């Protein structure tokens, strides 16, 4: 049995090795590429799963990188191993799904290489305990996300969406890099466990800068307010990529970052309030936008943003366990929803829900699993989404302000409403497109069934999941058995309030004809939501200001050598003057 550090390296290196191999195979042998991708994704998942019983609370592996870069260290504790397992297993299912979804697609090598490269980097991101290394892996995942969003690179929309995602996540990356450099400046190394054990040794203002820098990084990566605009556009990516990167793994990196560093930043004034506010505003706003979108994948993207808002909110309210439990549930049921949406889109060749309808008869299995996923998203008992969402709401009720809790409640009702809306638009009613619909392929079904089973059962793991996270949870988090935890949820008054709101949301869809007057009066909000509440306009303004200033600065780049030498000389003089003044 290999030891934990070997497994940690393997779970990163195996997918990476697969990426290189598939790249080398070239695109003339698509069957071999499919097979290699599945084999290496499976191997990575096996290595990550083997880490579960071996997890460790201290750093393993100590490989010096030399001077200022510190050591390559891994901290495979419960939190890290949990996310590594999520990344590799869902990655594995997404790769299996791709065998059918991407069949006949050109440039498979590029596709699979980036998917496997992403899986390895995501594992590296969560396992690393060197903050600089975390930053490096963080940026690699952003790069893979960009490359896969723009996979159909003859489509200008896809290219624009990829660049948008890259730029916005880079803005967040600056926050993370600044935090890493502050840590090095004040601690002398990048070691995360050392930092978490004694964060109060840092000056309070530096700690606050780090805390808010990390919050910006997390918000950009997890598509939280005000950075949420890149995720819906990212839906130009092939659907298995949306399921893997933009629903189940990479967007969770922000939530992971906040959860990992919560013990250090807890005491920073206003930090928790800021986290709660961002989560609550995002959850509600994205739910409204999901309600008015007609693109199946965009609806799912908005709902991802909204559910990530729930996780961020829970962290701000101190409910680390609740947030991670919701992360687990969400990763499973949202991957399921995205993959079944992929099967639907593959079948009808459109993402517009107005052209779908009545698909339940042609694709019965997809209908069943997608409804399971949808009900979990809506928070219907006894699916996994119900338990974790109730835990989040309970944690928020205890630890967060009342207004944010009310936001989340309304969000839960809207979630139920938009879930019913897209399910009925896709599967019920009269078939609206005259196209020939073919059922999902066998590899698609192989990927969908485990996720559906997971959606039905992961809540049974609640207690052992708490024990598994163990010391990764901040002190004072009492870990209970599954039974006690479930009983606590069932008996909590917040559960019934939330259930009532969810039922209200369902009833609103049922009675939508009678509520037409209300819907009409709310049309203004709907229009604002379709225009993404003006955030796209802000993005455009930022872009045009940047372009205009760059254009006006072009005069300094006149291409005349003499001017350039002049500028160098002036710079030299300035440096000398500064040195002279500083030395005096």
């Amino acid at each position, binding site marked *: 049995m290999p030891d934990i550090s070997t497994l940690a390296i393997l779970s990163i290196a195996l997918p990476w090795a697969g990426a290189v191999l598939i790249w080398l195979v070239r695109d003339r042998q698509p069957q071999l590429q499919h097979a290699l991708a599945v084999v290496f994704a499976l191997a990575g998942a096996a290595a990550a799963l083997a880490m579960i019983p071996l997890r460790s609370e201290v750093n393993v592996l100590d490989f010096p990188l030399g001077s200022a870069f510190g050591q390559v260290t891994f901290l495979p504790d419960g939190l890290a191993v949990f996310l590594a397992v999520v990344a590799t297993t869902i990655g594995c299912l997404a790769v299996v799904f791709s065998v059918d979804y991407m069949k006949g697609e050109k440039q498979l090598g590029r596709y699979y290489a980036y998917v496997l490269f992403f899986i390895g980097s995501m594992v590296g991101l969560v396992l690393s305990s060197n903050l600089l290394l975390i930053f490096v892996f963080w940026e690699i995942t952003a790069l893979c996300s960009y490359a896969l969003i723009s996979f159909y690179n003859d489509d200008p929309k896809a290219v624009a969406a990829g660049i948008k995602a890259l730029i916005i996540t880079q803005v967040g990356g600056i926050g993370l890099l600044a935090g890493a450099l502050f840590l090095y400046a004040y601690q002398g190394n990048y070691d995360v466990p050392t930092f978490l054990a004694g964060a109060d040794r840092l000056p309070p203002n530096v700690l606050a800068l780090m805390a808010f820098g990390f919050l910006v990084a997390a918000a950009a990566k997890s598509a939280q307010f005000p950075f949420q605009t890149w995720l819906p556009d990212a839906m130009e990516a092939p659907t298995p990529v949306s399921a893997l990167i933009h629903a189940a793994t990479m967007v969770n990196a922000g939530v992971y970052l906040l959860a990992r560093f919560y013990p250090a930043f807890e005491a920073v004034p206003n930090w928790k309030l800021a986290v709660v506010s961002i989560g609550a505003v995002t959850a509600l706003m994205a739910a409204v936008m999901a309600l008015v979108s007609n693109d199946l994948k965009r609806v799912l993207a908005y709902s991802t943003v909204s559910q990530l808002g729930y996780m961020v909110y829970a962290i701000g309210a101190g409910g680390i366990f609740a947030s991670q439990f919701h992360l687990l549930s969400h990763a499973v049921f949202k991957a399921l929803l995205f993959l079944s949406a992929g099967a639907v889109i593959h079948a009808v060749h459109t993402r517009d829900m107005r052209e779908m309808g009545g698909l339940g008869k042609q694709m019965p299995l997809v209908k069943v699993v997608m409804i399971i996923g949808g009900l979990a998203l809506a928070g219907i008992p006894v699916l996994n989404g119900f338990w974790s969402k109730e835990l989040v709401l309970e944690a928020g009720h205890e630890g967060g302000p009342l207004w944010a809790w009310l936001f989340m409640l309304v969000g839960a009702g809207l979630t139920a409403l938009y879930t019913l809306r897209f399910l009925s638009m896709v599967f019920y009613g009269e078939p609206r497109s005259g196209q020939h619909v073919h059922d999902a392929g066998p590899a698609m079904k192989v990927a969908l069934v485990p996720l559906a089973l997971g959606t039905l059962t992961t809540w049974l793991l609640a207690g052992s999941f708490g024990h598994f996270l163990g010391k990764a949870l901040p002190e004072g988090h009492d870990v209970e058995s599954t039974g006690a935890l479930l009983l606590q949820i069932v008996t909590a008054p917040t559960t019934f309030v939330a259930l009532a709101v969810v039922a209200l949301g369902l009833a609103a869809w049922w009675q939508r004809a009678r509520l037409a007057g209300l819907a009409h009066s709310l049309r203004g909000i709907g229009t604002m939501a379709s225009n993404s509440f003006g955030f796209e306009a802000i993005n455009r303004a930022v872009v045009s200001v940047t372009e205009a200033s760059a254009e006006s600065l*072009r*005069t300094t*780049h*006149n*291409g*005349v*050598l*003499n001017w350039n*030498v*002049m500028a160098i*000389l002036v710079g030299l003089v300035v440096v000398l003057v500064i040195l002279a003044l500083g030395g005096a």
Partner: protein
Amino acid sequence: MMSLSLPLMAAVAVLGLLGIGLLGLLVTRNLIKVVVGMQILVKGALLALLLAGRLSGQVQTGQTLALTVIVADTIVSVVALALAVQVRRQFGTLDLQALSTLRR
């Protein structure tokens, strides 16, 4: 009479070479003269390396670096002059102002 020590003379020479080289880069528009100016500039830097090696007692480090610079610098000037020949053949001029494509 003020005695001129070797380091002092060398320092004056360094500054002089750097100044002449920079001045050349600053005022000339002829590509060949730019290469000449760069050569003078680099010779100043070379001398500065040797001087620094002597002053810090690490003569060998200074000489090693100087040799490295000589090799790199030779390649740079050879490539630059070859480019100049090609530029003259292609565009019929060596005037940098006329050659610049970065202007609006």
